[in-house]
């Protein structure tokens, strides 16, 4: 049985990361729903969710058969590379070096594209593709941070909670969720995944961390603070150049 201090950060990391991805998928599903009706949006979404759930159901338990040391190293490196990518992009956006992601703009573009297409079938495929592709990242996060015994359930629970929350809020508002602080969430997730990645890579190398799992919190804080400092430097450099 996994204790709460281990399960809660995993569920929280999965929830925040999944929220960012689900919001992006929801924008496209909403566009399909508005332009072509609820049916193709619901069918495409349900088919993609079923496929993603099957992937987690098959690969999640299978990972427990892999030797722990090797699994920690591979998963740690993948998390490290993936998390660093998110953190880098969030730092560049926070520092003004990259344009922020705009859900309203994405919704408008998708709506125009769907209006020029014919047929509910293509609209359903559009919803399927959006949920499948954004969901691939969610599945990776769930499998990676849930790759230790007893952690798959809290990781999956975090992702399911994110799906339910975004769907409930989005269907109530019936518009893209532009008010969600996407870059701040990506920043937090980037720091979290990088922290998990560094911790598990070291565990996979057989190098023990002082403070054991509490070191993850220290690593997350380290990368978050470093990212904030880099973003502040970029903003200062931008102001000086202006």
């Amino acid at each position, binding site marked *: 049985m996994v204790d709460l201090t281990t399960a809660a950060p995993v569920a929280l990391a999965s929830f925040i990361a999944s929220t960012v991805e689900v919001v992006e998928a929801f924008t496209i599903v909403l566009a399909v729903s508005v332009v072509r009706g609820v049916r193709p949006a619901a069918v495409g979404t349900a088919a993609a969710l079923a496929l993603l759930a099957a992937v987690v159901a098959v690969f999640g338990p299978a990972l427990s058969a892999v030797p722990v040391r090797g699994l920690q190293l591979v998963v740690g*490196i993948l998390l*490290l590379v993936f998390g660093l990518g998110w953190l880098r992009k969030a730092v560049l956006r926070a520092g003004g070096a990259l344009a922020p992601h705009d859900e309203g703009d994405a919704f408008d573009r998708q709506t125009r594209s769907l209006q020029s297409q014919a047929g509910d079938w293509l609209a359903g495929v559009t919803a399927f*593709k959006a949920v*499948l592709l954004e969901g691939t990242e969610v599945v990776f996060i769930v499998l990676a941070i849930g790759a230790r015994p007893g952690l798959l359930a809290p990781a999956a629970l975090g992702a399911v909670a994110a799906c339910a929350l975004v769907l409930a809020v989005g269907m109530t508002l019936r518009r893209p969720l532009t008010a969600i602080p996407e870059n701040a969430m990506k920043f937090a997730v980037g720091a979290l995944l990088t922290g998990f*990645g*560094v911790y598990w890579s070291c565990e996979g190398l057989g*190098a023990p961390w002082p403070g054991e799992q509490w070191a993850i919190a220290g690593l997350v804080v380290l990368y978050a603070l470093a990212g904030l400092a880099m973003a502040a430097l*970029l903003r200062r450099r931008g102001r000086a150049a202006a």
Partner: protein
Amino acid sequence: MIGVLKGFAATIFKMFAADIALSVIALAAVALCAAGEQAGLIGRGAVPFALAAGVLGALAVGVARGARG
């Protein structure tokens, strides 16, 4: 179907290789720590700190490259 597969391939690429240099430096940091520990150049207790610092360096390089465009 081809569109879905192309999108899937693009997603995988975006996840792990959007900035090749960042990914390579991060992998190199892990490999150097492992090799350094095997060769006796880094003590086992120092590996976590060396890797944490290497990853910080990778982030700094990735941000600097991204800011230059």
